[in-house]
C-alpha cells in the first residue's frame, strides 16, 4: 500500500486514476465515485492506492455507515417483540432476532437487557431498511461473537478502529508484549477492553486513544512509548 498522501476534496476530479483506468480495470473504494467517464472524490482526505489497481480516500469520520459483513459493537437499547434493538452508531438502530444467538430456540431465549454490550456481525445493510445483526456464523456457532461482560468500553474514530484491525498493525502486538488483555474492536469506532486489573485497563485505554493522533507512519513511534502509559 502506498501512502501517496495527496489530499483530495469532495467534488475534485482525479485524473491520475483515469490515466490508470485507460490501461487496466481499477477498483474504486470508499470516498471515490465514477461519473460517466470521470472519477470524482466524494469525501475529503488523503488518496490511498494499493497495488495493483485499488484506490480509496482515507477520510476521518466518526459516523458509522453499516456495510454487510462488518463486525460491530452495539449496545442493546430495547426489546421489541422477538427482536432486540441495538445501537451500533449508525443513523438507525439495528435489530437482532432472539434466534440469531448460539443455541437459541423459541423457548430458550438469550438473556440480554437494555444497556448490555454485544459483538455482532452485520447481516443486512441497506440504505432503505434498518440494519440487521447476527451473533452466529452460518454453522450456528457463536465464535467470538456474543455478549461482552465487564471490562471497559469506549468510542473512537472509525479510522482508529480500522487501523487496529489491519492484519499487520503493530499496535496491539506491541501492547500484548507488555500485558495480557482481551480486546474487541468494532469497525463502527467502538472498542471493548478488559485486562487483569482496573489500572491496566485504564493504561491500555489511554494508550489506544493516543494512537488516534498518530498517522500511519507514526504508529511505530507511539507504540515504542506505550510503556509510558503503562507506568503512568
Amino acid at each position, binding site marked *: 500500500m502506498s501512502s501517496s498522501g495527496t489530499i483530495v476534496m469532495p467534488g475534485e476530479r482525479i485524473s491520475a486514476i483515469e490515466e490508470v483506468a485507460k490501461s487496466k480495470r481499477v477498483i474504486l473504494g470508499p470516498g471515490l465515485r465514477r461519473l460517466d467517464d470521470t472519477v470524482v472524490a466524494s469525501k475529503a482526505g488523503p488518496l490511498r492506492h494499493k497495488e495493483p489497481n485499488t484506490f480509496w480516500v482515507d477520510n476521518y469520520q466518526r459516523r458509522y455507515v453499516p456495510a454487510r459483513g462488518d463486525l460491530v459493537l452495539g449496545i442493546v437499547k430495547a426489546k421489541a417483540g422477538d427482536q432486540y434493538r441495538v445501537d451500533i*452508531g449508525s443513523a438507525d*438502530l439495528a435489530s437482532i432476532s432472539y434466534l440469531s444467538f448460539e443455541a437459541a430456540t423459541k423457548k430458550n431465549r438469550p438473556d440480554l437487557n437494555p444497556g448490555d*454490550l454485544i459483538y455482532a456481525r452485520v447481516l443486512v445493510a441497506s440504505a432503505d431498511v434498518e440494519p440487521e445483526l447476527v451473533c452466529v456464523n452460518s454453522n450456528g456457532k457463536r465464535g467470538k461473537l456474543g455478549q*461482552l461482560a465487564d471490562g471497559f*468500553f*469506549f*468510542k473512537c474514530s472509525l479510522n482508529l478502529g480500522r487501523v487496529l484491525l489491519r492484519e499487520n498493525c503493530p499496535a496491539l502486538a506491541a501492547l500484548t508484549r507488555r500485558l495480557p488483555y482481551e480486546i474487541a474492536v468494532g469497525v463502527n469506532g467502538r472498542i471493548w477492553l478488559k485486562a487483569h486489573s482496573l489500572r491496566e485497563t*485504564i493504561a491500555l485505554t489511554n494508550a489506544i486513544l493516543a494512537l488516534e493522533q498518530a498517522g500511519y507512519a507514526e504508529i511505530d513511534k507511539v507504540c515504542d512509548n506505550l510503556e509510558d502509559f503503562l507506568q503512568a
Partner: protein
Amino acid sequence: MFMNSNLFEPGKSKQEKQFIQLAVKQNQRFDGRRSNECRDVELTFGSDWGTVAVSLNDTKVLAQVTCDMGAPTTSRPYEGKLQLNVSIGGVAFLDEMQSTYDQRFLTLNSQLERTFRSSRCLDLESLCVAAEKHVWCIRVDINVLNHDGNLYDASTIATLAALMHFRRPDVTYANDELRIYTEKERELIPLLFLHYPVSVTYCIYKSNPQPLVDPTLLEENAADSVIVLSFNSYQELCTLNAGGTVPTNVRTIMQCARYAATRCKAIVEFIRKTLALDEERRLQGTGPSQGLLALLGENKHKLSFKQLMEGYQKQDSPTLQDSQMEVDAAQTSEKPNVAEVPVKEEQPIKQETGKLVQDAKPMDTSTWLPQEATNDQELPTPSRVVSLKVGKGKNRAKNKANKKQQQLAKKQNHSDSEEEVTQVI
C-alpha cells in the same frame, strides 16, 4: 431527534458507568489525577477588550463581552443591565435539541445567571448614565467550543475573566445629549465589581464517599450527583447547586465547600495576575493580534494556572490539609474551635473591603460555617436543587445564629437538624 442522540457522548452506557464506579472505588482516575486535583486552567486574552478563551485541558470556552446603550427596565431605573448568553452549538456530539433544551444546559445557564446576576457581582448602578433613560447594557457571550466535562467552572472562569478584562468607553450626558467618547479621545473604563465569584464542581458517586473535583465528561456523565459551589474571593458562598441521586452527607458538602472556597480565591488571584501580565503586554505594544485559531493553538499567549500559581499552591496545601483534618476532628469532638479559624482569616479582608461587602449583602461566613458543620447527619437531596442566594443571607444568618445556640444547648438531636434541613431547602 434520533432515539440514539447521545451516541457519541462518553459515559452514557452501562458498561462505562460500572467501570467508572469501580475506578472511583479504587481512587483511580483516567488522567491519573488524585480525587482533589484540578486540571490546569489556561487563559488566553484576545486583542479586543473582554475576549477571553479558557481551557481546562480539552474543555474550551470562549467568552466575549460587549456593551451598548439601552433603556433600563422600569422596575430598576438606576441600574445597568447584565445579560448572559450561553451557546453550546460548537459541541459536535450534541444535536440541536440537546444543545437547546437539554437539562444540563439549562442548568448551566441558570448556574451562570445565579452566580453573576443574582449575586450582584457587578456594580450595576455605576453603569447608569441618565436615570430612566440611558444605561449601559453589558452582554456576555459564552461560547462553548469543546466539552470535556466541567462546563460550569470553565464558563464561570471565562465569564469572570472576560468581565474583569473588559473596558467600556467613557460617556457624558448633558442637555439631553449623549456623547460616547472613542478610545482616542478618552481612556476606556473598566467595570466596577462588588465581589468576584467563581465556581468549583464536584462529582459524587455511590461507591466512594470521597468526591471528585473538576470531573471530565466521562466522570460527569457516570456520576450519581454533581455539586456546584460558587464562592467569591472573600470566600463567601454565592451559589450551591446539588442535584442527583446520592444521599449527600453534610460533612461531604462542608468538606467540598472548604476546599472550594480556597480554590476560588486562588483562581481569582490567578485571573488578577493574568490581567496584570496582559496589561504589561499591551503596554509594550506587541499586543496579540491573532485570530481565534491562534488563540486556542499552542502559543506564548497562554497563561497557565499551574505555572503562575506554583508558589501559591505550595503555600496553600498545608493549610488545606489542616482544615480537612479539622473537619474530621470536628466530627468526633464537639468542634467549638473550628469556627474560629476561618473567621479570623476573614476579618482583615473584610475591613479593607468593608463597604463593598455591605453592598453585596453577603452571607456571614462566621455564622453559616460552624452551624452546618455541627450537622453530621445524612442529608438526602434526591434530584433536588438547593440554592442559597447571597441576597437573602442576612435574615437567614440571624435565624441561624439563634438556632445555633438552641442546638448547642440541646446537643443537636436528630429532629432538630431535620428542621434545619427543611429550612435551607
